[in-house]
């Protein structure tokens, strides 16, 4: 029977679509985790997040094409490098030029994004490049859908990164210090926390999350200089939806958006499917303005 003229599908098809949405959502969650840390904790709207993701994707690609390093093995190189890059970027550029003023920070990160993107266009051209791995057609058959290993790895990765970030923030001195700086900067200074260092570390961890995302995305997505846009747009949606600064929110928000997108595709077709993301976004914020897991007091 037709409902509002939408096609009707068997429950297997719908379930299969939802499950593939979870895998897609885990990819969004991975990108959103770093963003929610930087955005929610440091109140920096990092417009360079997508550019950093793209850059990390190129790093993974060239490690593979030039040295034959598998993208998952590349985690060991790209993640520490991402941390160092993020730390240096925050302390050397963003912190130095924005003088703690949000509107300048915004412009600085935007400028960095433009520079990285144009630099990539110049250095790597607009050609799409993709890592080829021998295992990207194997995976697990769930009956209603089939998931390839890279999808399963992305899901596992998003769960591990969420858990690791949560443990880090709630169980370590550095994690506590980051939270202290986020809400009470002067108080943090007066207990001897090096605030500038904490900013660098936080940004570095955000960049390291981006690097994890890049390694897990590389087997399934081709990279080009514009690669970051779509992901970051959706990742921003995920962050706001899940509640700024909440890791669990980023994870659940990612899943929600992924499932919504896939179901939207199923029912409305490829071109209209993405509309459902905006719909669910508006709907959630209507009932919970602070996002699913957000705290009321900014």
């Amino acid at each position, binding site marked *: 029977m037709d409902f509002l003229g939408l096609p009707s599908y068997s429950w297997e098809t719908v379930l299969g679509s939802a499950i593939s949405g979870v895998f897609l959502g885990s990819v969004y969650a991975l990108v959103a985790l770093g963003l929610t840390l930087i955005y929610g904790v440091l109140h920096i709207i990092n417009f360079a997040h997508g550019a950093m993701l793209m850059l990390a994707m190129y790093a993974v690609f060239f490690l593979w094409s030039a040295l034959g390093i598998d993208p998952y093995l590349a985690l060991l190189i790209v993640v520490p490098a991402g941390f160092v890059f993020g730390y240096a970027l925050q302390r050397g550029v963003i912190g130095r030029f924005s003088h703690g003023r949000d509107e300048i920070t915004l412009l600085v990160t935007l400028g960095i994004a433009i520079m990285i993107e144009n630099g990539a266009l110049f250095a790597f051209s607009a050609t799409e490049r993709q890592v080829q791995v021998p295992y990207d057609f194997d995976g697990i058959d769930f009956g209603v859908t089939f998931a390839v290993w890279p999808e399963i790895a992305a899901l596992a990765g998003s769960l591990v990164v969420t858990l690791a970030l949560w443990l880090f923030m709630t169980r370590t*001195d550095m994690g*506590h*210090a980051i*939270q*202290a700086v*986020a*809400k*009470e900067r*002067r*108080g*943090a*200074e*007066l*207990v*001897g*926390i*090096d605030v500038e260092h904490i900013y660098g570390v936080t940004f570095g961890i955000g960049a390291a999350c981006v690097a994890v995302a890049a390694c897990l995305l590389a087997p399934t997505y081709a990279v080009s200089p514009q690669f970051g846009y779509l992901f970051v747009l959706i990742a921003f949606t995920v962050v706001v939806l899940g509640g700024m600064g909440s890791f669990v929110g980023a994870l659940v928000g990612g899943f929600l958006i992924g499932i919504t997108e896939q179901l939207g595709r199923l029912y409305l077709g490829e071109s209209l499917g993405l509309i459902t993301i905006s719909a669910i976004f508006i709907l959630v914020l209507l009932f919970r303005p602070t996002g699913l897991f957000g705290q009321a*007091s900014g």
Partner: protein
Amino acid sequence: MLEVRGIRAGYGSMEVLRGIDIDVAPGEIIAVLGANGAGKSTLNNVLSGVIPAGSGRVMLDGADITGGRPTAIVEAGLIHVPEGRRVFPNLNVEKNLLLGGYRRGKANRAANMAHVYEIFPRLAERRRQFAGTLSGGEQQMLAIGRGMMAEPKLLILDEPSLGLSPKLVEEMFTLIARLAGEGLSILLVEQNVAQSLEIAARAYVLENGEVAMQGLPGDLLARDDLRKSYLGV
């Protein structure tokens, strides 16, 4: 313990402190009194490295800490409990205390925390409560407890009685006297002149960024100008 010589400082081109000299000996409570806007908090912020000094010198326990960053000054043992408490509202009481030992006193955190809980049993009862949900008095206790976690050589308390009920103010001053009794050197910055003079060994009165009067509590209380300006009699 603390030796402050000729400190000048301000904001931009506005000079707030015009040459301040202060001395604190070990185990002493020294009061710094003065009306709103006299420059007391500015002095504290200069001592803890939050605001740079234009000129002058600060010695702590024989070491020159002039111009040091806040991290280095905390490391050296000068701990500033700021006006308005500045506790971490999004962390619970226990984590606030742990962060008090972030830079200094790290090795003895457990023992120091037990000591803080012994002095402030109310904090022990609320150890899992977010600091943002504490009452003003409890936040003040937490701010002091957090300062003690760093095993201070000198503790600066900026208006610890501000906003507390009269009964709590009384309690707070008794407590400060007890801390000094345990050997802690305290620079007590207050507008509450009468009660501060009861527990202080000596006092300085700041007016317009200068030391207008100084001396023993008894001598100060005998002065008509002090009584008129600060005690209203």
